[in-house]
């Protein structure tokens, strides 16, 4: 019987709590925080690892990122991926979700084998939640987004709970794609042995040329991206009253303002 093949798509993103923003230029100082696996993608990797424990097979992690993201893919190996592919090329740069998803989908085509693709729900930097469903569309496979529980897995289908405001139990025929929320599992920490294995595993690097036989290279990167950021700025909090009540009658004063604000009638 053929091996079950899971692909996990990973975005190397900065730690949001550490990253610094340049308020004047409205840009992110990317050097201020090292790249790490986007937190939601940790859940995707854990889901893949748990499925592999049941069905066996192989997990491939794929990431489109600059060369400096290599340690992030090593981390993916430590967390259960058997193989990791870094798509890196100047021609991939400046990609929006359409170009990113097209590039990732092309790499999956090139890989040639997949039964299930797992993505995190969204990323902490881009926060679009678009890449997963767009990859599914490029590949012409069904998808279920916002998966908060995996109820059952077989080599042919997946039974999952999708959190669409109300939870729906959904059946997905494979090959298919899911995007997972943080509720789907609690990612394990890699053991020392996992880390050693990761250190020994070589990260495969693919460039635009490597995908040329399965893709239209004009659809990569900046040239394949219809959306442009024309302006960006660091959020300034809305001006708030900032009234602090102290002392014995603090609660009375709070009730007073809630009356005045029309909250209490």
């Amino acid at each position, binding site marked *: 019987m053929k091996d079950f093949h899971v692909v996990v798509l990973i975005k190397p993103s900065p730690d*949001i*709590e550490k990253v610094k*923003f340049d308020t004047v230029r409205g840009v*992110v100082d990317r050097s201020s925080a090292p790249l790490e696996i986007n937190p*939601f993608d940790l859940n995707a990797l854990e889901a893949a690892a748990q499925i592999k424990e049941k069905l066996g097979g192989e997990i491939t992690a794929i990431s489109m990122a600059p060369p400096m993201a290599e340690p992030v893919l090593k981390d993916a190996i430590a967390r259960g991926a058997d193989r990791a592919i870094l798509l890196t090329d100047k021609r991939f740069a400046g990609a*929006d*979700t*359409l170009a990113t*998803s*097209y590039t990732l989908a092309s790499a999956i085509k090139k890989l040639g084998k997949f039964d299930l693709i797992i993505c995190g*729900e969204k990323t*902490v*930097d881009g*926060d*679009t*939640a*678009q890449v*997963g*469903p*767009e990859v599914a*569309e490029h590949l012409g496979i*069904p*998808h*279920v987004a916002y998966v908060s529980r995996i109820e059952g897995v077989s080599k042919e289908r997946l039974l999952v*709970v999708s*959190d*669409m*405001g*109300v*939870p*729906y*139990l*959904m*059946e*997905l*025929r494979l090959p298919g794609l899911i995007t997972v929320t943080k*509720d789907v599992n609690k990612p394990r920490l890699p053991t020392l042995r996992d880390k050693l294995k990761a250190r020994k595993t070589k990260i495969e690097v693919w460039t635009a040329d490597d995908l040329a036989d399965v893709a239209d290279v004009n659809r990569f990167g900046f040239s394949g991206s*219809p*959306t*442009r*950021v024309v302006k*960006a*700025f660091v*959020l300034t*909090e809305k001006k*708030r*009253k*900032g*009234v*602090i*009540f*102290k002392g014995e009658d*603090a*609660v*009375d004063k*709070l*009730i007073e303002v*809630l009356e005045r604000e029309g*909250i*209490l009638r």
Partner: protein
Amino acid sequence: MSEYKGILVFSEQRDGDIHPISFELLGKAREIADKKKCEVYSVLLGYQMREKAKELIYFGADKVFLYDHPLLKEFDVINYKQNMVNLIREEKPEIVLIGATPLGRSLAPRIAAALKTGLTADCIDLQLDENGELIQVRPAFTGNLIAHIKTSTRPVMTTVRYKVFKARERDLTRKGDIVEKEVEIVEDVGVRVVRKESVEVVNISDAEIIVSGGRGLKKPEDLKILEELANLLGGVVGASRPLVDEGWISKDHQVGFSGNIVRPKLYLACGISGSPQHLAGMRDSEIIVAINIDPSAPIFNVADYGIVGDLYEIIPKLIEKLKNRKRGVKG
């Protein structure tokens, strides 16, 4: 490019009810269309919804495209996408607006990828530049950054956050056409709803008053005092992520980046520090009140009113006074 005209609003329905975001989007679409001198279209996919389709006209649509089929009653991402793609190819709208609900955010990317067009996620404002081109305003980096985005392909596709725009007054005198379209059904799409889970969920994004608890609470039972306070105020209980991850409360109560985005009249944060991820879910609340023992907690930076102190003293006192007030007793 100029063959693309008009604004198309996707109308989301569940169990035959139109989601209020659809009316909000029609309100904004109307405003943009009046400036651009173009029409507003709406599309509704569902089953036996002709009567409800009229509502879309009352709320601002000039024309409603109706796709009526039993298989469209429930959200079916492939068939919804297929019919949306067909419609957009036929009608060529310049702009397509979709609510940034879980359904919208699952569906819109598939449409955009199929049409090879740009899509901007979860917008909190839409503006027109001097050439009448759409500027899409959205947060990024967990809400720390605001970006203005333009799209070079047509249609310009956008998902828009719930409750950022106001619906217009329902106008029963508005006239418009309801055009029934031929439905294309893709058989065997590979994904199906087995059942809707029968659990009670709070619809926290619709709540006007939210009393939220965080790690300042010492044990799960203590959520009861927040519940009592919420009941007295006519609101619902919210929570920061750690309480949900610990299993103290279900995730429909979670506020924040990986939970729900809320915009209530009153957000009362009790024992919540105000992490960037939490703020991303509630910073646009009308009035924010914080109760926290630590005067340097970041939540106070976004609070209109705050009390520095132990929530275990303040909340019971607040509850008692509110009860007395209800009974008409002073003090």
